[in-house]
């Protein structure tokens, strides 16, 4: 029978085997799937990621060069203004006896690869073990939280964005201090769900959602997004809350890796610009984009 199948019906046999293998993979439990993914990624994709990184780096350098030419002209003007402001800032700081705080460090990295899947969900960065980057570091931009590092190699890291099923974040509503968990659920992309919030809690559309710091991976106070829609789950016990992410994941080119210092701490509230502080927001965004790879934004901002 098998001999007949393999000699006369080879195409159908291959088809049935491939479909069976696919279905088996889909029916594996989450832990087995994770183990399988880990094994295949380390055998199949590791060399490909290196090549992809080289190519994208070349393309990115070209585009970056174009942007930097324009930026240099702008920054030259801003530099003079900044020098004057820095002097004023130093004088005021001394007056107030404020010690410089270094509760965290932010290392900039370039996005060198994106998910092969249309729906996205992951990114590849050009920083890895050699630069002191470890797994489970939070990834930020001046707009808000991007995700976390899943694994690293010598000069690369794979990031699970918030739009990945394996990236759940402990979150808090800024206004009412209600806690929950933000997670992407398969469906209406690219929005997130705020889960486990009781139907009695006070949550309204337009509320800002921040990280709560629970869980230890993400620092507290980082903007995740804005509540877009609030409803009631079919069970009647919890709210159905849809969150619009603060970050546009499709357009990420540079990100910041959060590296907590030994003293710990949270990201200061003023790190994330408010709507009313649009001038500061633009300045911070430009600073993040222009930050040299070896120099952290925090160091620049506090210098």
């Amino acid at each position, binding site marked *: 029978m098998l001999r007949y199948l393999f000699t006369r019906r080879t195409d159908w046999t291959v*088809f049935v085997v491939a*479909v069976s293998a696919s*279905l088996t993979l*889909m029916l594996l439990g989450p832990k087995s799937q994770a183990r399988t993914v880990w094994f295949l990624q380390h055998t199949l994709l590791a060399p490909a990621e290196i090549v992809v990184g080289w190519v994208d780096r070349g393309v990115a350098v070209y585009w970056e060069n174009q942007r930097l030419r324009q930026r240099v002209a702008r920054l030259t003007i801003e530099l003079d203004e900044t020098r004057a402001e820095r002097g004023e800032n130093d004088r005021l700081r001394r007056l107030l006896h404020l010690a410089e705080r270094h509760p965290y460090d932010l290392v900039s990295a370039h996005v060198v690869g*994106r998910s092969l899947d249309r729906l996205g969900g992951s990114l590849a960065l050009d920083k890895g073990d050699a630069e002191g980057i470890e797994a489970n570091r939070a990834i930020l931009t001046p707009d808000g939280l991007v995700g976390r590092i899943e694994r690293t190699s010598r000069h690369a890291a794979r990031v699970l964005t918030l739009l990945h099923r394996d990236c759940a974040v402990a979150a808090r509503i800024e206004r009412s201090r209600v806690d929950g968990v933000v997670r992407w659920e*398969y469906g209406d992309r690219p929005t997130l769900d705020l889960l486990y919030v009781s139907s009695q809690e006070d949550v309204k559309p337009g509320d800002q959602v921040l990280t709560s710091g629970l869980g230890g991976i993400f620092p507290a106070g980082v903007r995740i997004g804005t509540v877009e829609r609030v409803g009631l789950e079919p069970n009647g016990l919890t709210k159905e809350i849809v969150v619009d992410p603060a970050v546009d994941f*499709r357009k990420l080119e540079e990100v910041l890796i959060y590296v907590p210092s030994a003293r710990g701490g949270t990201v200061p509230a003023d790190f994330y610009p408010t709507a009313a502080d649009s001038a500061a927001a633009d300045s911070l965004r430009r600073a993040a984009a222009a930050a040299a790879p070896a120099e952290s934004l925090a160091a620049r901002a506090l210098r």
Partner: protein
Amino acid sequence: MKSVRDIAVLVVAMILQATFLYRFEIAGIRPDLLVAFVVYLGWMRGPIAGTAGGFLVGLIQDLDAPGPLGLNALSKTIVGFAVAKAGFRVHRANAGVRFAFFLFAMLAHDVVYFAAASLGDLALFLKQMLTIALPSALYTALVVIVILALVENVWKRPLLVDET
């Protein structure tokens, strides 16, 4: 020789997909060259290559996808096989035939993909077919036609040829 060329095409398609194509997104929709590659493989190399290629390409894509493992592998296996079995044997050089073939093959892929992913939620399935699958299939088919025309023009040889 054909296998080497196919692998080279796959590598180029993967690199473009991972690094370059996001720059051409329109309203969140970008071309999916990997499905197009599976369609090409099934159409030109037959059911075994189409099925095996579809499974492997889908598996690689699954490793990087936010959805469940095996979803891309299943949909690409089916489309690789179906394309080879149903593929037009003639008029492959005709741009209209190419466009229609790639469009319908990509829609068939997405029917399997979103049907399995939405787990019986008909409203979600229809919404994804309308908002993601249809624009993505149109965009990809258009891009593939342009790429094929450009490559054939430079190479001076047809990539998709009729069976004799």
